[in-house]
């Protein structure tokens, strides 16, 4: 067969082999990935979409650092039992500012895409300190050091700036005040607190997230957990499509 004959010759030229491999391997990715950037319906429009406050962003980075995503998904599928267990299925828009996304691939623990507001801050503080104090047969690790570790807010402005460069709509004022805002969100009686509400909206969770005097990593993480699923209300208001 002439095709095999052609291959017989291809095998003699390593460069052509390499080019052939690249060509064959490129097609799938191009066809599946490129349109995701150009087709508008890929991500729903969400006028009420908000951004992470610096404190929540810091909390999200702790979530990443500790590898919580290895056990928790943040992606409710369009399946009936999931919607009943966890809440409305996740929309693409909800993670549109997530660099990277944290959809996860394993549910050793439950999905937490709609966790925000489900439990009190005290519950989270106790649970993170030692999950077995709250849920006796839990196999989640204890994160007792979070409450002991002060939150480093020094370079949060640079974090916001990097995210803005990637398309997240942070304003100059947000970037400039990132460090103060992070602390102020968890110390609502301070002078700086009004600035947070001004920049991030009145509905921002402004409170002490744990009983510590200073702002710790625990506060940041809880502030993040409390807005999961609350970045936009679209999923709760939109006409749901069929679940399977």
């Amino acid at each position, binding site marked *: 067969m002439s095709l*095999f004959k052609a291959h017989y010759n291809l*095998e*003699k030229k*390593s*460069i052509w*082999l390499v080019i052939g*491999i690249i060509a064959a*391997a*490129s097609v*799938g*990715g191009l*066809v*599946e*990935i490129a349109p*995701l950037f150009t087709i508008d319906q*890929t*991500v729903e429009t969400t006028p009420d979409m908000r951004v992470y406050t610096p404190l929540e962003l810091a909390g999200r980075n702790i979530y*990443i*650092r500790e*590898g919580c*995503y*290895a*056990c928790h998904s943040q992606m409710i*599928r369009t399946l009936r*039992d999931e919607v*009943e*267990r966890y809440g409305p*299925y*996740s*929309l*693409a828009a*909800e*993670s*549109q*500012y997530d660099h*990277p*996304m*944290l*959809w*996860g*691939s*394993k*549910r050793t*623990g*439950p*999905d937490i895409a709609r966790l925000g507001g489900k439990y009190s801050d005290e519950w989270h503080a106790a649970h993170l300190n030692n999950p*077995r104090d709250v849920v006796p*047969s839990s*196999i989640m*690790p*204890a994160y007792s*050091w979070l409450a002991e570790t002060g939150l480093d807010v020094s*370079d949060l402005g*640079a*974090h916001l700036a*990097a*995210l803005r*460069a*990637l398309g*997240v709509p942070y304003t100059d004022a947000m970037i400039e005040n990132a460090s103060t805002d992070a602390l102020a969100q968890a110390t609502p009686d301070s002078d700086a607190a009004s600035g947070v509400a001004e920049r991030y909206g009145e509905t921002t969770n402004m409170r002490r997230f744990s009983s510590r005097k200073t702002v710790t990593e625990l506060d940041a993480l809880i502030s993040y957990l409390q807005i999961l699923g609350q970045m936009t209300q679209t999923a709760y208001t939109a006409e749901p499509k069929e679940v399977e």
Partner: protein
Amino acid sequence: MIAQLSRTERQWAAVLAILLALLGLTMAIAARQGPMAVHGFMALALGVGLFIAVGSVLEKPQPATSRLAQYYDDPTKVGIALAMAWGLFAMGIGLWVAALMVWPDATFGHAWMSYGRIRPVHTTGVIFAFGGNALIATSFHVMQRTSRTRLADQLSPWFVLVGYNLFLVWSVTGYMMGVTQSKEYAEPEWYADIWLVVVWVAYLVLYLRTLARRAEPHIYVANWYYLAFIVVVAVLHIVNGFALPVSFAGAKSYTVFSGVQDAMVQWWYGHNAVAFFMTSGFLGMLYYYLPVRSQRPIYSYRLSILSFWGITFFYLWVGSHHLHYTALPHWVQTLGMTFSIMLLVPSWASAGNAIATLNGAWGRVRDDATLRFMFVAAVFYGLSTFEGSFMAIRPVNALSHYTDWTVGHVHSGALGWLAMVTFGAFYSTVPLIWGRKAMYSAQLIEWHFWLALAGLLTYVFSLWNAGITQGLMWRTYNAAGTLNYSFIESIDAMRPYYIARFLGGVLFLAGICVGAVNIWLTVRGVRGQAPDRPLALQGAE
């Protein structure tokens, strides 16, 4: 070993060592503190150490030119040793991770020990450290044998090995310090990623230069697979790695992609790490060592062509089967599912080609545990690709996704296929390149084989059960039409399976310990020497 380098090569080695030390110093100074500074100091120490090692032999006489008439196997030796060491380490960590799912308090309140940080140490450790070093080591061996030529030079293999292992050390120590991009199988941060690109390009160049010197007109199949492994992994790694560092003086970066696009890029990468790291590369291994060990030619040349291009083309389409029923547009999910099913054809063509090769050599498979390792590997390759195609069907994935079934699947591939073919390849190579007549003990290879097989079966059966149980409990409704089980009940139900999985891990780890001892005793030369084989006598298998 270093004295085997020519004078010029030693000089270049010294220059590279200085550059590495300077790179480390720059990183340490720029970062001043934190993980990146620690990593800078590591590179600095390594650079200085290498410089001293090279410097001490810089003026020694040139090695005899007769070396050029032989294969250059020193890097393969070191690569095998590194793979075994990483294998012991990473499987040990794996056992610990498994233990944490039964005894969650075994982290003792230390951040670096906690589950989320050491799980990637395990995955990176087995896939990229154990598997990667094994691939690099065997590829050096195979490219020389099948091309009947010596490695193109003596320095770049060392650059590849040392550089790659520096990347690995940066990665795993980074996770423990909390440095991670959180992208599965691509956790290392931006500077480690860039460093890997440099190393990888050197690897590709070395491979192509060596092929260019070949004394055989044709490039043997094994090399196509190794080439596909090197080339496609480079593309995947670069695209998935696009990230913007918060500052060049710190480890943290933000991935360029977000949300649904990020998910798709991630699993396009993730699944093709499976394909080109864990499949293509190891098929390269299989296509060389299986025929050599069984002394049978590959069953069908045409089948190898079809399956090679089938795998290279189809695999890149299937990543979206990791995202069924998610916010990823439906049409991409459908494409992913369709191609996953089609992928079974070239996958089984490869597995079948390997097994048919053994036809007529079944006696050897029975008597020779080394060959049996490779036979079992081919069987498990066939099984896991069948399972994978099955799991990629949307309704099946509705059940399996997010459960331990996926983990069971991964380990049927990783233990049954990757580790098994690697051990077979090592047991074939070690006596040969260390100039021994045979492995120290055939009996110990038998022990290793049965321990590994028992461990593997215990592991995957317990997790298949775990996953299916979990998946069913999550979707069981009671008569009143509400969900029957709370989440925590599904966790409680996992306990016996997690204990069984732990025991499976103990067996598998015991196996690799036996293997390590056997290799060590072989290298020490407790048994007799066999003459090294000069270049020209070696046929191109």
